[in-house]
């Protein structure tokens, strides 16, 4: 009972989920079967969703589950379909692959770290009394931002700071249209090609 009371549960769960996330991410790297990779990736992304839930952001957590973990399921299905002709075939990495991936991954890490460290409030210790999200527990603000109104900037008088008020509608729409194009393109490329015996005697002219 005393042990329960003295433990810092938040840190404990944070460490647990962080370990799971990183551990399974390493598992993705070091396995050579695409289905194993997808399985580890799912677990890693799922633990990442756990981190979001722990941080009190259930919307982002559920998003993570829906988009990333759900998307990986589709990836898994494709992986199975593409590799199923040889039983449990493995992917071999070309010899120079490690170097290239190290360079790309390292560059990405540097980019992300510099971007993250530029945020002022992430570098300094958090003031416990000021929890900006504590009183806004709905995603309304986020949703309104995506559809064009930045609720958090409405009170700004300065025209320069009000510039962000138009919200994220344009990028949002651009991304949606882009995804639609990708979907249509994928459907076009994956469509069944029907071969018919044509009248000209050419036995396999493509019609579909």
């Amino acid at each position, binding site marked *: 009972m005393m042990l329960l009371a003295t433990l810092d549960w938040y840190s404990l769960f944070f460490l647990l989920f962080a370990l799971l996330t990183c551990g399974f991410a390493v598992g993705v790297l070091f396995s050579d079967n695409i289905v194993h990779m997808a399985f580890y990736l799912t677990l890693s992304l799922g633990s990442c969703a756990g981190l979001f839930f722990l941080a009190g952001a259930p919307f982002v957590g559920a998003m993570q589950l829906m988009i990333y973990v759900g998307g990986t*399921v589709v990836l898994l299905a494709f992986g199975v379909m593409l590799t199923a002709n040889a039983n449990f075939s493995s992917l071999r990495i070309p010899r120079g692959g490690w170097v290239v991936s190290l360079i790309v991954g390292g560059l990405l890490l540097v980019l992300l770290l510099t971007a993250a460290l530029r945020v002022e409030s992430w570098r300094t210790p958090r003031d416990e009394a000021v929890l900006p999200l504590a009183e806004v527990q*709905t995603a309304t603000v986020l949703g309104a931002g995506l559809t064009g109104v930045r609720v958090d900037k409405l009170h700004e008088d300065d025209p320069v700071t009000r510039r962000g008020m138009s919200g994220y509608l344009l990028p949002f729409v651009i991304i949606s249209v882009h995804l639609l194009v990708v979907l249509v393109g994928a459907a076009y490329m994956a469509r069944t090609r029907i071969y018919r015996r044509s009248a000209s005697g050419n036995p396999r002219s493509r019609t579909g």
Partner: protein
Amino acid sequence: MAEFFVDRLSLSAPVGYTLAALIQCVLIVALIGVAALLFIWMERKISGRIQDRWGPNRVGGKFGWFQTLADGMKLLTKEDLAPKDAQVILFRLAPYVSFAASFSAYLALPFADGWVIAPMTMGLFFILAVLGLEVFGVILGGYASGSKWSLFGAIRQAAQVVSYEVPLAMCAVVPVFLCGTMDLVAIGEKQAGLFTNWLVFHDPFTFVIFWVYFTCTVASVNRSPFDLPEAESELVAGFLTEYSGLRWSFFFMAEYSSMLLVSGLAAILFFGGWNGPLPIFHCIGWAYQQSETTWRLTGYLANLAGCVNFLAKAVLGVTVMMWVRWTLPRLRIDQVITVCLKYCVPLAAICFVGALMWQTLAWPSPNDLVPVTPAGKAGVREQWVLQQAKNAGRENLVGVSGPATDMPVTDIVVRPLEQEGGEG
């Protein structure tokens, strides 16, 4: 529940929360276990009656009450086999993945007003997200079995679930914009009153969209006529071919528990959740009012009756699914995808726009004919607002002035786009 342990029994916060979490987990496992026992018995009995025979009638008396227990014993004693070609780790893990997914969706499912394990502002979204993960275990199991039947079943399951998630989400969105919240407790509470206030009777479009939702859920929990992944007549048993014993039964537990889950979700989204067809407990004043923050016995009893009500609706939904299973023949895989893409998606889209129009133009709904509703839709607050009020009350009670008391109880509530016509 955790607040009860901490406040009333004066346990320390971590102990209280751990205890509450344990109790809730045990309750949910018990619910799923009992539900699976009951549903398997019901399935046998209903299929028997539909096929004009008795069904189980020997084990445990006239009605074969203990048939499922006997089945369970048989499953327990079966040998736990893994095929020679299987990838053993994935093969053994897959049933647990399926079961865990359908189990954890219960985290956000409310059983009565405020009776929910993890009160989330986006409970519906969470449930939809987690429910989609159940297919993961099926694909893994099918792939790792090293058998072509299993692989066919798994790929069919993937195609089916991924396609049916689209119309399913479109159907689930309609109650969200009619209520203006994704909080399932708030959605349920907004349908308090006579049964005319249930969203399925809100307008013709919601009535249609409930049936689309029902079709999609039947497909997404892969029940017949959509049980292509385990089509016995063509694929031996689909993804279940190589499984035996307890692992096989884990897949079935997952299937039955997600049947209960989607039926419960349908009850909340379209059939008023824990609110009965007649608002008896509201009329005699037992049910909790929105502004109330304290516990009382009559409110607890009203909630208990609500819970029974909710479970009855959910079990009724499962029964209808069984009825459908033993009535309709299995579709072909191309017909399954056709039903989804050519019928369910357009229907859902049309009904979505229609219901939106109905709400925005404030066209009349049957509920307008009813003179009195106990709580208007606009009066219902989301859970986090109530929780803040409750917390503020607790802090005042104890006399500790923390940062939470200084914080005003925010009144940002996502209101419905339009107030109900009758209240305006």
